[in-house]
């Protein structure tokens, strides 16, 4: 004991508290502070005559942060007070982030469910005047599914193979160049991707507007996301598994195909699904390349189509009540579509993930 004491070279730790028992706030204290601050926020807001409820809420949030810090500092001491401060800041930030999201969802569900029914899902806008009620999104839904599906068919294999090259084979100048350009591609605004395909495919090569042209622009947007997420997933595969396979005399390409990819397949699928969800909401390339249409066009390679984001934009631009209703309902369908993809991705990831633990 004395030997370790004399050999100690690090500075002595701060002195231990004199006693282990310290005054503590009761467990309901944070809830009480939050309630009190909320009431005070509303009260002061009313007194000061502030119109905006947002101001009331921000005032309440600030009051809560300050009150819980001061209360804890008075009763529990400085270290606990800082802990409470951090906790209340985290909670307030969480609420500030969640409230817009929740209200967006609520608004969309409330306003979108007015005209959302079987008729809406199975009919197009063909022959429906903008001021009329009725009509539907079948043509737009079909367009979105086809364009996004084609984009995924183009982008997923290229992205996957790029990531396999970067993680399993790359390492030289070429790999760093690819990584750099993938990073640059991640930042391409969707309208620029649309303009690129427009000038190349439609103006230079003289093809017409089509769902496929839109799909190419969407694929440009999707590719870097797939590369990035697949790369991360492949990096998570332990090197020991590759070595184990190579040491069995399995060639490298087969090791990648049969050991590395199956181990990472859950995460890769999730990444592709999330990329699909991300591009499903793009409207700029569709605006430029697919042109938009009120009719059902089941052929994505020929002629104008519509898509959900484009449909929402178009209906909103009409500027009358029936069109607004249709726009909200289409937005609801789009959100549901994206959410369904997310859920599907999570399910796949869970289903495909390597079994953990004892069985």
């Amino acid at each position, binding site marked *: 004991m004395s030997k370790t004491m004399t050999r100690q070279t690090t500075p002595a730790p701060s002195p231990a508290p004199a006693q282990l028992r310290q005054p503590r706030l009761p467990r309901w204290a944070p809830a009480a502070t939050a309630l009190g601050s909320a009431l005070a926020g509303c009260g002061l807001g009313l007194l000061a005559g502030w119109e905006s409820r947002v101001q009331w809420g921000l005032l309440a949030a600030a009051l809560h942060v300050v009150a819980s810090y001061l209360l804890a500092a008075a009763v529990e001491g400085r270290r606990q007070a800082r802990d409470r401060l951090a906790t209340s800041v985290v909670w307030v930030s969480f609420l500030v982030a969640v409230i817009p999201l929740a209200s967006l969802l609520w608004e969309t569900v409330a306003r979108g469910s007015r005209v959302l029914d079987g008729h809406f899902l199975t009919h197009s806008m063909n022959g429906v005047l903008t001021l009329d009620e009725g009509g539907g999104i079948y043509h737009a839904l079909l367009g979105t599914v086809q364009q996004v599906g084609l984009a995924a068919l183009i982008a997923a294999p290229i992205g996957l193979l790029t990531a396999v090259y970067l993680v399993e084979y790359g*390492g030289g100048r070429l790999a760093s160049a690819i990584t750099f350009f993938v990073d640059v591609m991640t930042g391409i605004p969707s309208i620029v991707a649309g303009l690129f395909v427009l000038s190349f495919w439609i103006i230079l090569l003289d093809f017409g507007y089509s769902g496929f042209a839109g799909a190419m622009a969407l694929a440009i947007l999707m590719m870097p996301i797939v590369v990035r997420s697949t790369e991360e997933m492949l990096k998570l595969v332990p090197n020991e598994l590759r070595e*184990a396979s190579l*040491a069995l*005399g399995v060639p490298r390409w*087969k090791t990648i195909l049969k*050991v590395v990819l199956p181990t990472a397949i859950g995460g890769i699928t999730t990444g592709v699904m999330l990329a699909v969800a991300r591009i499903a909401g793009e409207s700029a390339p569709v605006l430029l390349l697919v042109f938009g249409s009120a009719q059902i066009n089941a052929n994505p390679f020929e002629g104008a189509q519509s898509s959900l984001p484009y449909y929402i934009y178009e209906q909103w631009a009409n500027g009358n009540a029936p069109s607004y209703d249709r726009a909200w309902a289409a937005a609801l369908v789009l959100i549901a579509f994206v959410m369904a993809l997310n859920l599907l991705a999570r399910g796949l990831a869970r289903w495909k993930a*390597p*079994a953990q633990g004892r*069985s």
Partner: protein
Amino acid sequence: MSDMAKRIDVSGLTAFYSGFRAIDDISMTVEPRSVTAFIGPSGCGKSTFLRTLNRMHEVTPGGRVEGKVMLDDENLYGSEIDPVAVRRTVGMVFQRPNPFPTMSVYENVAAGLRLNGGHRKAALDDVVERSLRGANLWEEVKDRLHKPGSGLSGGQQQRLCIARAIAVEPQVLLMDEPCSALDPISTLAIEDLIEELKSAYTIVIVTHNMQQAARVSDRTAFFNLAAVGEPGKLIEIDETERIFSNPSVQATEDYISGRFG
């Protein structure tokens, strides 16, 4: 089985990681149907040397080898040698058990054959049972062959990895600290297994446990390095009994008796 084991003859072997010389000018002979143990302090190049024996060293980015490794009368670093074929001939068991997490016990053992293709189901069943029996694991897993391999205990997983390695019928088995992640009982099981396997295979084992080297090996090689950043060197190789009782180099005795450094 008796003609499977092969003699390894290493001469003037130097291995690099990019510019760094990890081991320098090593020459030794590994006898067939025997166990050779590599001992030495951390960083002295035992594992690197082991990995040069089945061309796994060059899998590491920047890994490069000079010198000759003769397997009977074939130079493993000859220009016409396929490294993949070398690894099928010289199997390897790693420090940490690494069963393939997506595969069942059965699939893990069959992996080497299956991934190399062309095996019928019945023949595969045979090989899997024989390999698991060979690794002393059959009795414990025969009722859970189609459960995930990662569900086994650490010791069982390591024996699964040994079964996987011997399923491709290598002629040499390299083991890189196979017991360092295991408890004493699992270690004993692996050591018993090594004792049995040596009747058919040439076995090389890297270990930090000198009692283990004394227990399982017939010959022992002591590696050392002059200083950190210097390449590792082979100090001496001899009958295990001699190394542990009367080594010819002072450094060996210092290391074995714990007077090192």
